[in-house]
């Protein structure tokens, strides 16, 4: 175990540039909190006290959600270090920083640069397609540990890939995981990326994900947020190339005292670029959720279209969902729209179902299932819909029964 100190930094892979400078930023920046604009509404108390970089623990059992998946390559990173890579292909062990994430964004970005220990890189050569999905598991298994895995995905011209990044942690270990995922898509590259966040109870995960899209490149990103005490996704997509496109669909279901925090920035620079965000979530018990989505359309991005939608179901009186969609348009020739809603299940819908003899409890379940169906159907990587629908339903039924 190594504490988050300069001495630890000195022992880590020296090929990562600016570790010490990042450490300096890390030690000077305060912990983020609701007073910071980009952490607004996050009331969850963050403490790095007593956390240290762990010695690598034992890998977790296979993930039932991923049971239906047949990956071409499967990398398991445990406590920030690569434990195994099965199959051969374009994924390799090792750190490759694409430098899309500045280390002074916040204390966690600085910590990541200072303490990043290992990771995987995926590089698809021009014109190549991966035949089956690449699965990367980022696991936290050691108690009171903090880890900084790094995933870099680069698709060269006209290549195509399907990647799943699963964030997992053993229940009750009180760990922090601070991964960074960097995505660089060259001209006409097409990536389907699914982020599956199912960190166990008592742990937190703070993901920074950056993507840069070249001309006519397409990113289809799926987000599934189920676990963690504090689970945060800090996502920025830079639509740099003309005709580049990003489609983001996500769902989350928060319960107990979870805080699920989604920050999305879509920056359109390329003309005729397009983006579409659909995030649907539910909060139960005294869970909190935050969606902050900024679509910024730069001056020369003519012919751009951008839509963002965030729908939230608030299923108990103590739960709370915050939704802050934002558009910044610096260009005339654009089509944009955003919509957001926060509220309980619709009375009219419940009444309609009940008027056909369906009990109030069953009617609620049908509606919750229906609410998420639109997103499950659109996830960029198939094969997990049923498992996810079941988890969401189980969670809802548990809350229903404990409320009854």
């Amino acid at each position, binding site marked *: 175990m190594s504490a988050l100190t300069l001495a630890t930094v000195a022992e880590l892979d020296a090929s990562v540039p600016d570790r010490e400078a990042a450490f300096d930023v890390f030690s000077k920046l305060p912990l983020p909190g609701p007073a910071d604009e980009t952490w607004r509404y996050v009331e969850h108390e963050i403490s790095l006290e007593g956390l240290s970089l762990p010695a690598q623990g034992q890998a977790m059992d296979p993930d039932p959600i991923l049971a239906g998946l047949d990956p071409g390559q499967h990398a398991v990173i445990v406590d920030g270090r690569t434990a195994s890579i099965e199959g051969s292909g374009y994924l390799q062990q090792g750190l490759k920083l694409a430098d899309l994430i500045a280390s002074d964004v916040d204390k966690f970005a600085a910590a990541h640069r200072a303490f990043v220990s290992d990771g995987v890189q995926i590089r698809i050569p021009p014109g190549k397609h991966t035949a089956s999905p690449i699965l990367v598991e980022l696991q936290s298994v050691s108690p009171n540990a903090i880890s900084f895995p790094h995933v870099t995905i680069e698709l060269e011209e006209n290549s195509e890939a399907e990647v799943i990044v699963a964030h997992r942690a053993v229940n009750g270990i009180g760990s922090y995981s601070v991964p960074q995922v960097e995505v660089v898509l060259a001209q006409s590259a097409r990536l389907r990326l699914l982020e599956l966040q199912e960190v166990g109870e008592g742990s937190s995960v703070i993901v920074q994900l950056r993507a840069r899209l070249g001309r006519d490149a397409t990113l289809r990103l799926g987000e599934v947020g189920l676990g963690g005490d504090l689970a945060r996704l800090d996502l920025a997509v830079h639509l740099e190339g003309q005709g580049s496109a990003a489609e983001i669909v996500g769902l989350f279901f928060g319960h107990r005292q979870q805080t699920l925090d989604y920050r999305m920035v879509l920056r359109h620079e390329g003309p005729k670029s397009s983006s579409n965000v659909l995030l649907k979530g539910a909060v139960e018990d005294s869970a909190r959720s935050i969606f902050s989505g900024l679509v910024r359309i730069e001056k020369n991005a003519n012919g751009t279209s951008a839509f963002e939608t965030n729908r939230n179901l608030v299923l108990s009186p103590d739960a709370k969902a915050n939704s802050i969609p934002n558009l910044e348009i610096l260009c005339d020739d654009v089509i944009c729209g955003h919509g957001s809603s926060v509220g309980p299940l*619709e009375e009219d819908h419940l009444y309609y179902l009940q008027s*056909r003899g369906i009990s109030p409890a069953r009617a609620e379940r*049908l509606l919750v299932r229906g609410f998420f169906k639109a997103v499950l159907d659109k996830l960029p990587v198939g094969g997990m819909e049923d498992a996810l629908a079941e988890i969401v339903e189980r969670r809802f039924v548990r809350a229903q029964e404990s409320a009854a």
Partner: protein
Amino acid sequence: MNAALRLADLEASVGDRRILKGIHLELPFGEMHAVMGPNGSGKSTLCHVLSGRTGYQVSGAAELDGVGLLTKAVHERARMGLVQCFQYPVEIPGVRLGEFVDEAAAEAGIENSEQVIAAAAEQFDMTRFLDRSVNDDLSGGEKKRSEIFQISVLAPKVALLDEVDSGLDIDAVRDVAEAVEKMRGPEVGVLMITHYSRILRYVQPDRVHVMIDGQIVESGGPELAEELEKGGYAALRKRLGLNEPEETSAPQKRDPFSELPFGS
């Protein structure tokens, strides 16, 4: 033998406002009755009160096949055999019509429900909608057909049709009327609530009840609907010696098709 539906001295109010002022009505099994009335007469309230919508103070009796309805929850009434065809069926994204009807049929204890659903879907031309979300992106006529399809699967003792022809163009009215006719049977009483006599050109009710100001003021055969078609509610009031309507705060509904010069 019990009536399918029997209402006795049924009253309903919202706050201080009395809306239903003592409704008496008996709908035998095997018959179709129409309740007609002008805007604000309490027709919609009657529907709501029977199906169990909250927000009304209710007194009197409403029995379905001899069993009291008024103390039951919405879904219990449906399981007892009261199923409503909504005037404005809501769209429920993400809930497939097929799965919804499956669940409803299971709750209603329908035997061979798979075949029953398939046959009813075929009969009402709903098969292609089973995999789609409930009422999502359906035309007005398709929505009403979907309602009647659901009712026909659930084989209720009482089918309550609330303004089944509102918002439909003339061809759709004919389709819907045809579907309503198919619902008739010895095991069911159909209660059709309607402002306009238009649909009554295509379906022939056994009895027509006219509701004005929260009461049934006249009952008769199909000829009563014809009288209303010719002279409107004003002429009927005159014949019955009723006062002009009181000011009402109920929102005024307009059906543009009723103003077209149809020949009868």
